[in-house]
């Protein structure tokens, strides 16, 4: 699994943010959001920093981190593909799109490929029900998805990535 690097710079940034949150009640959640944003995940090393600053035990912090699906212990892939399994998309067949993407990448939902290029997520309504079914790649929404259109977009990125690797 991918390792994350805790640079001095990022660590200082996190500590600075936490000290701001400490001025207010309930600083843990905002601090965790910042940590997730800065490092892309919240592994034990990062939890220790938060623990030091907030004087909250690591065990408690770990409990909170693992409760919420937005916080992760491990980093995600370079490209995050989300297929909407919100109800509007589901009844219009988004499960087939998700299956296709997982098949192509040979991973399960929530996993990251070995080369750390792709993570696949099942998301909830992204607010584009009018375009259902939808999937997202790195935040951009692709509407009226079909198994073919998803496969095509995926191919495009894979080609692009392998292209740059060869260079």
């Amino acid at each position: 699994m991918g390792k994350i690097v805790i640079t001095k710079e990022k660590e200082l940034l996190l500590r600075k943010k936490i000290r701001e949150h400490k001025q207010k009640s309930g600083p843990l959640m905002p601090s965790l959001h910042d940590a997730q944003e800065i490092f892309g995940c919240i592994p034990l090393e990062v939890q220790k920093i938060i623990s030091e600053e907030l004087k909250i035990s690591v065990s408690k912090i770990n409990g909170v981190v693992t409760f919420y699906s937005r916080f992760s212990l491990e980093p995600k892939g370079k490209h995050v593909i989300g297929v909407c399994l919100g109800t509007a998309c589901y009844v219009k067949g988004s499960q087939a799109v998700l299956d296709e993407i997982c098949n192509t990448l040979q991973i399960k939902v929530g996993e990251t490929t070995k080369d750390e290029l792709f993570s696949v997520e099942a998301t909830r309504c992204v607010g584009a029900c009018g375009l259902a079914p939808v999937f997202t790649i790195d935040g951009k929404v692709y509407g009226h998805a079909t198994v073919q259109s998803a496969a095509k977009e995926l191919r495009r990125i894979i080609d692009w990535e392998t292209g740059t690797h060869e260079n």
Partner: protein
Amino acid sequence: MKTRQDLNKIREENLKQIKLLDDTKYRVVVGMASCGLAANADLTYDAIEKEIKERNLQNITLTSVGCIGECALEPIVEVYDKDNNRYTYCSVNERKAKEIVNKHLEQGEIIYRYLIDNYKLLIDEDGNKYEAPKYQYRIALKNCGIINPTKIDQYIGLDGYKALEKVLFEMTPEEVIDVVTKSGLRGRGGGGFPTGLKWKFTAANKGGQSFVICNADEGDPGAFMDRAVLEGDPHAVIEAMIICGYAISASQGYVYIRAEYPLAVERLQHAIKNAYEYGFLGENILGSNFNFDLEIRLGAGAFVCGEETALIASIEGERGMPRNKPPYPASSGLWGRPTVINNVETFANVAQIILKGADWFKSIGTEKAAGTKVFALGGKIKNTGLLEVPMGTTLREVIYDIGGGLPNNKRFKAVQTGGPSGGILTEAELDTPIDYDNLIAKGSMMGSGGMIVMDEDNCMVDIAKFYLEFTVEESCGKCTPCRDGNLRMLEILNKITAGKGTMQDLEDLRELALMIKDTSLCALGQSAPNPVLSTLDKFYDEYLEHVVNKRCPAGVCRDIAKLVITDHCIGCGKCLRNCPVNAISGHVKQRHIIDLNICVACGTCKPACPVNAIISV
């Protein structure tokens, strides 16, 4: 900091601009909420802006606005003219945008074929005509799609913060609570608890710090009402929260919003900043002696945090687990203090009630449910989108008159309301007037406003499984019935959809469901069996088909579905081109055939067929 005189001036100027009472010739708005942006409304906006500049057109204002409501036809551009006409152009790409500027804005020539005229006839690009949405009535969405949500002045222009002024300078806190109580406003977050009563109970515990919380966690996996309000009209929520603070003597508010809504968070942040600058938030609001601060707290992807006690735990920095009630938040909420917690849409009604009075609000809707409700209509429906109707409107009116019915001549099967806590309503129940009690009596619930239409291609056992998968994933794990019971139910459903179910399983399923309903700690567990129970009650035949005949009539459950092409086939080849595993063969204009050895029953071919020739056997 603005004085009340300043506000009056801003109000007057902006009203003039919005109503085109100044020298503005056309007011052009582009819907740029999440749905619009997903359809590239930003490119449309840029194209219009560029074209106006290139043609050097004067006296035209171009504004980006929130959700206009017709999500299926995004990007949407609306042109308002001096005579108060409103022209709604749909599916406006860059080419159409240029044409609209050239023809409509420059030469005054309306391009009818791009139009959906909300008050006459709806016509889409293919010439399909829909009935007009005559039942809509906008209170909570009053400004959505009309004002630029990032411009506080435009909100003020349409009576914004006027209710706050009225409350601060003309009303006592008791009077405010009284109006809200008399209006009959009930919570729009699902439960339908009377809002005035909630405020009253909380106010009774004042003395020391109290809190106001806005629940913007919007957990229903297929709905987006609250997001639309926050993206399209954030100040309506802020104003109401300040009013609530005044009524219950709270000086601190929190908006708990899903982190998955980046645009709504951004717009809300911006709006709060503006509200501070204008003196609507902070100390001595508008020169009164009332103080109120407002902060945003982000959710982190846990459905259960929409439940009020879990939400409070989450703000406090704990795992978001519900606790037993009582004590209710009204007496012991955030940090043990008295707390009002209301849904976004509930708040979005408050300022209007203060301004127009309790009687006005009560005159809309039904006796037991005053006002309107916003729904996110989706699934197998022509006009997917956001709509607001008076309580008491029937499901049929919403689905057929506003929603335009089902696409592709498919047969209606069911409509789901209330999300994972709700249930399914059938054809026979379509004339039910929508309100809290009626929907519960029919085995569903109002919920927060998700409304998903399903057609003959949807399998009801699969839908029950879909919702249960959701609840199993989202159960916080604190109580056994919810944590383990729902998982057992899911296992049974998996068995049934794999063609391995028995009659005993159907009995076990019902028994488990009733037990979980009775014994779970919070409403998540108590309502989790609803989708299963309501499908069992209303589509028992479909369960039997799966169990007895090992057959999925809708052709959805992959392990047992068999898809075939009937002799209705016209040989167009669309199914063949859409099949991801190349299981279909056939010549042009001849009947095609599915090779069942290759077919994975993904169902992609079904909607692709223009003559519904693909069926499941």
